[in-house]
């Protein structure tokens, strides 16, 4: 099976975000970036499927600047066979144009299965998997928490409101991966050294004009200082009053 894993380089979850001077983007200086955490599950699943079948390829693709080579090398070190960087200097924020560029490239390579994270933790759009599947004409299963492959059929489990749904699908498919699907591996030294010899190709991303425009970006308001209403049981009436009248949550 030829598997494509779509990954994204995102600001590290513990980094401090500053808004850039234009008020519409984030200031990249001083921000540390990392591989989107959900994409780690996608990569791991791809490697496991390849190991299970004993054949096939795992190709990792991302759209971005040259800086994303670091994350791509990391995926090669963990076991991907090949990495592709679709280059652009633009900040790609919109799921539709990302999906268009990825779909255009995926159509040009052998691919029966696309794995991605359920969402990128920077923009949290949650759009790409479905949008990509529609453009490719592939089946689509999102937010998969358990995945099995037997006799060419995938059985996927998804957590839906208060229940677990089980669906099956055949290839070609786009499957997006939820936390808990697997435990991603670490790169070992041998993998890191082997990664140097694996192909990391670059091609220009064919991005259409964005379908959305970011009008403004603001940080959430700073949290107000807490208030101590008293201690012990005696403080409970004051707490209830404050929750009802000030916070209006009761």
């Amino acid at each position, binding site marked *: 099976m030829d598997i494509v894993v779509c990954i994204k380089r995102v600001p590290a979850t513990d980094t401090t975000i500053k808004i850039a001077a234009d008020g519409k983007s984030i200031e990249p200086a001083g921000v540390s970036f990392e591989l989107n955490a959900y994409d780690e599950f996608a990569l791991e699943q791809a490697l496991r499927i390849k190991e299970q079948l004993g054949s096939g390829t795992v190709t990792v693709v991302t759209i971005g600047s040259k800086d994303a080579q670091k994350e791509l090398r990391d995926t090669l070190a963990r076991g991907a066979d090949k990495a592709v960087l679709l280059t652009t200097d633009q900040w790609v924020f919109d799921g539709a144009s990302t999906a268009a560029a990825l779909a255009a490239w995926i159509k040009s390579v052998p691919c029966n299965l696309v794995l991605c994270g359920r969402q990128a933790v920077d923009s949290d759009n949650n759009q790409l998997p479905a949008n990509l599947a529609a453009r490719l004409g592939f089946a689509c299963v999102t937010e998969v928490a358990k995945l099995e492959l037997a006799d060419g059929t995938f059985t996927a489990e998804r957590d839906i409101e208060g229940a677990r749904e089980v669906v099956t699908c055949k290839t070609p498919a786009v499957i997006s991966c939820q936390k808990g699907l697997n435990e991603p*591996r670490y*790169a070992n*030294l041998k993998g890191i*050294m082997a990664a140097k010899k694996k192909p990391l190709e670059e091609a220009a991303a064919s991005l259409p004009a964005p379908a959305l425009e970011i009008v403004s970006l603001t940080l959430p308001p700073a949290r107000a200082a807490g208030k101590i209403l008293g201690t012990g049981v005696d403080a409970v009436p004051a707490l209830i009053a404050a929750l009802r009248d000030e916070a209006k949550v009761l």
Partner: protein
Amino acid sequence: MRSVAIGAAPRYAAPTMARRIDTYLKDLIGDEKLAFYDAVRDFGDAEIAPHLLHWEREHQLVPDSCIQAMGELGLFGLPIAEEHGGQGGDHTDLVLMGLAIGYHSQAVAITPGAAISLGAKPLQLFGTPAQKKAHLPALARGERMFVFGLSEPGRGSDAANPQVTAVRKGSKWVVNGEKCWSTNARWASHVVVHALTNPSGANGKRSTCLIVPMDQKGVFYQEMQGKKVWEQSSTGSIMFENVEVGDDAILGTENDGFKVMVTTLNGGRLFIASLALASLAFALDKTRVYAEERIQFDDQPIGRFQRVQDVIVDMDIALERGLTWLMHCCRLYEQDKLSREQAAKVKVDCSRSASDLLTLAMEVCGGVACFDEFGLIRHFNDLFVTRVGEGSNFALKDLIVRPLRKN
């Protein structure tokens, strides 16, 4: 396996400071080495740091599951050649592992650290092709470990004249006596015993190294009790009672066993230096973050006091100096150009600066530094081992002074 943190850290929370050591390493090593360091650091953050306090409070040695995970990561086979099932790395990789894991716990780091630098290393340097083939693949996977059997109850710094003896009896050697301070004894498959074989030989030519299986008849191991340093590391004493091995057990040459031991220690001392710097790196980050958080007098952080800043700055200087020097020594070691004095010097300096500075770092943090969960006391205790282990600093100065006294 990697635990992935999602949403664990609030996105807009106060910045967690980047590790100071990472900024220095970036300039000292290439991308590939950095990627390896990052992977081991992430492993330490996710798989070791969260459990340490529990292991300590339960007085537990490194759990088997952790040893297995480090084995899967390839840590036990770092500088072992690929043809022998290792990772094909070099001494710098070993030292980077010490820095990455020692940042949390020297005791955990020394487990693969000693398994390689004291266990597998003499075999790599002096083993016959048959000995290498028999042991290196299992050592590389962490399934087997060799103990470095140099120290004895009666022979510490004066190690050239062991009280453990090996006497020839027909085609066999019969070993008697006791080794102690044996790191990794709990998990060891074999011990390389440094034994007296030729009492009338010249000094340094009286001993032979023998590879003895731990399950051989007459070998008894006991964990040394009451040790308050490197608490998660196994330190054993090993007794030999008429233990018989053949000539194929000899590692290196008969009556030239001391050379096997001291040559091995050269690389080991670089690893000990890495542990000292790892503790210093942790203490630096802990102290500088705390100094900005702890408010005393006038609603201001203690980090504004120059006497506090002095300690932090001195730690920073010692860290950058030590790392630069250590990486230089690793390069010389790989080119086979590192002298015994150079290895001794970097070990002496890193261990004493780090442990002296730790005392001051704890003073900067105040009473909170007494608590296990704050982390500094663990590094403070462990740093003591770096001063005496693999050659007491005082004794090593005898070695360092030699070229200074020649005409």
